[in-house]
C-alpha cells in the first residue's frame, strides 16, 4: 500500500460534482503534481487531503491510517498557500516557530529548529524581520520553512508560485524540489502551469472535470498522452486528420500520404482518426529518419533567439514547428514554399 493513499474520492458542491471517483497512491518521498485547468478539482483534492473539505465518499490514508475523520490540525500535514498566509503580527522566526509552540516543543529546541529551517531556505538572517519586510519569493520560502518546521508527514503546495514573477518562479521551484529531495518528504503540488509540473515532479496527475485523466512520469505524460485533453493541455500540439488504411500494419493516410506508424491500431479500416505531433517532432525540409514529407507554405515566423517558431500550412492544417537558430541560415520568409517532414514513430494517435 502506498504511503499516502487516496481512494474513490467524491466531492460535490451543491449539484456540481467537482471530484469524481479520484484514486491515487503516492509513495513515501514522492513528488506528485496535480495539473489541470481552473475548476478541474485539483485544489479540492488537495483541500480534502489537508482536511479543509470533507469528501462525500472515499478514503484518504497516510501510513495506513484513515485521516478522513480527523480535523485539519490533527493530520500532521503541512501546507503552503498561494497567498503565502504568513501571520502578519509575527516575525519570520515566530512564524516558523508557530507550529512548534502549538506542539509544545521546548524553547531551546524550537529556536534550534527555526535556525535550521531558515538556513534550509537560505534566509538565516531574516528571523527578526516581519513578513511585510520581505519580497514575495522570500515570504513564500518562509511559508515553506514554517510548514516544514513541524516535520509533517505530507507537504501540500497549493499553487505556491502563482503569485510570483517569472524569474523567481523558476528559481524557487528548483529550490522547492531540492529541499523536498533533501528532506525526502512526500509532496503534492497543485499547479495549472504545465512547465512547472513537468520540470519538478516525479509523477504528474493530469486532471480534467474532476477526474484523473492520466497519471505518469513527466516524460510519459508529454510523449505518450492517453487522451486528447492531456495531449492538448500539456505542451503545444499539431493535429492532422487521418484515415486508417490497414489497422494490423498500422498504416494510415494523412495529407495525401500513406505511412506506417510502426504499431498496430485498434480501429477498423477506413475509420477516421486524429494524428498529433509535438512542434519539435516536425522538421523544416527533409532530414534522415523523417520519412513522411509534406509540401507546406510558411504562414508565420517568430524569431525567439535560440529557437525559431514557425507556422506552416500543410495537408490543410496549420502546423507549428520549432527549429534551432543558426547564424548562417536565415529563417524562411512568410509565404515561402517549403517541405516539412516527421518520423512516423513520433506520431501520437489520439483517443478521446
Amino acid at each position, binding site marked *: 500500500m502506498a504511503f499516502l493513499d487516496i481512494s474513490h474520492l467524491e466531492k460535490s458542491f451543491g449539484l456540481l460534482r467537482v471530484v469524481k471517483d479520484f484514486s491515487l497512491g503516492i509513495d513515501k518521498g514522492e513528488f506528485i503534481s496535480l495539473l489541470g485547468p481552473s475548476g478541474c478539482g485539483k485544489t479540492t483534492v488537495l483541500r480534502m487531503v489537508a482536511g479543509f473539505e470533507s469528501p462525500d465518499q472515499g478514503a484518504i490514508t497516510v501510513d495506513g491510517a484513515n485521516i478522513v475523520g480527523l480535523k485539519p490540525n490533527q493530520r500532521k500535514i503541512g501546507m503552503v498557500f498561494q497567498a503565502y498566509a504568513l501571520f502578519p503580527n509575527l516575525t519570520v522566526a515566530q512564524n516558523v516557530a508557530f507550529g512548534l509552540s502549538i506542539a509544545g516543543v521546548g524553547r531551546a529546541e524550537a529556536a534550534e529548529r527555526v535556525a535550521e529551517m531558515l538556513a534550509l531556505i537560505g534566509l538565516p538572517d531574516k528571523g527578526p524581520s516581519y513578513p511585510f519586510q520581505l519580497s514575495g519569493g522570500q515570504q513564500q520560502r518562509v511559508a515553506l520553512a514554517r*510548514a516544514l518546521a513541524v516535520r509533517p508527514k505530507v507537504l501540500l503546495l497549493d499553487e505556491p508560485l502563482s503569485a510570483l514573477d517569472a524569474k523567481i518562479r523558476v528559481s524557487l521551484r528548483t529550490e522547492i524540489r531540492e529541499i523536498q529531495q533533501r528532506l525526502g518528504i512526500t509532496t503534492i503540488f497543485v499547479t495549472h502551469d504545465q512547465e512547472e509540473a513537468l520540470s519538478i515532479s516525479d509523477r504528474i496527475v493530469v486532471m480534467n472535470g474532476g477526474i484523473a485523466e492520466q497519471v505518469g512520469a513527466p516524460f510519459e505524460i508529454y510523449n505518450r498522452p492517453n487522451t486528447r485533453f492531456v495531449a492538448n493541455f500539456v505542451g503545444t500540439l499539431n493535429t492532422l486528420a487521418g484515415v486508417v488504411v490497414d489497422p494490423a500494419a498500422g498504416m494510415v493516410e494523412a495529407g495525401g500520404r500513406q505511412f506506417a506508424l510502426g504499431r498496430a491500431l485498434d480501429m477498423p479500416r477506413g475509420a477516421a482518426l486524429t494524428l498529433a505531433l509535438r512542434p519539435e517532432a516536425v522538421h523544416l525540409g527533409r532530414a534522415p529518419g523523417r520519412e513522411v514529407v509534406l509540401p507546406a507554405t510558411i504562414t508565420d515566423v517568430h524569431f525567439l533567439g535560440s529557437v525559431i517558431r514557425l507556422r506552416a500550412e500543410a495537408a490543410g492544417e496549420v502546423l507549428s514547428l520549432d527549429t534551432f537558430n543558426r547564424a548562417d541560415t536565415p529563417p524562411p520568409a512568410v509565404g515561402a514554399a517549403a517541405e516539412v517532414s516527421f518520423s512516423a514513430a513520433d506520431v501520437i494517435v489520439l483517443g478521446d
Partner: protein
Amino acid sequence: MTRLWSYGALAIGILYFLLPLYGMSEFSLRMIRGEYSLQAYYVVLGDARFQATFGYSVLMALVTIVFGVLLVVPTAFWVRLKLPGLRPYIEFITLLPLVIPSIVIVFGYIRLYNTSSWLPLTGTAMGTNVLLMFGYATLALPYMYRAVDTGLRTIDVATLTEAAQSLGAGWSAILARIILPNVLGAVLSGAFLTFAIVIGEFTMAALLDRPAFGPYMQLLGANRAYEPAALAVIAFAITWACMGLIQLVTRFSKHNRVAR
C-alpha cells in the same frame, strides 16, 4: 477660489465645535468671582461621590470591554469564516441599539429580570451590575462590531485560519494568537469607544439605580453652576485621551507600520 471655500468651511466647522467648548471651559474657571481659578475642578475632583462614581464607571467600562471583545471577536470571525451569508443580518442586529432607545432596553430588562421573574437579576446589587454591563455591551455593540469587522476585512481570515490549522492550532489558539493580535488596533478603537459610552451613560444606570458617573453628572448639573462645566471638561479630556490612545496603539503596533 475653491481653496477659499474650503478654508471658509473649515473655519465655520472649527467655530461650531470650539466656541462652545471655549465658552464652557472659560465658565468652569470662574467659580471664584473676579478671577480665573481651578476651584471648580478642585471641588469636583475632591468630591467623594465623584471618585466613587467615576471608579465604578471605569470598572464597569473595563468589564464591558472584556465581555464585548469576548462576544464580538469570535462572532465576527465566525461569521466571516463560515457564515458570510449571515453578515447582513448580524450587521442589522448590531445596529439595532442605535435605533432602539436605551430606556426601552432597560425597561425590557427590568420586566424580564425583576425580582418576581425566573431570573431575578435585579434582586441583588451584583445581579444588577451584571445586567447593567449587558446593557452597556448592547449600547456599544454597533461600534465594537463595526470596528472588529473592519479590522477583519484587512486580513485574509480564511487563509490565515487554514495556515494555523495546518500547523496544528485549534480554534482558541487561532483566535488568541492570530486573529486577535491582527485586529488589535480595531479592537482597541472599539474598546475606547465603549469606554467613552459607558463613562457618560445616564439612562440605564439611573433606571437600574447604580452609582455610575452619568447619574452623578446629571445630579451635579441640576444643582450646581460651575462644577458641571468643570465635569464636562474632564469628560471631554477623558474622551480625547481615549482617542489619543487609539492613535498611539496603532502607531506602535510594529507589524503594520508599513501598511499606513
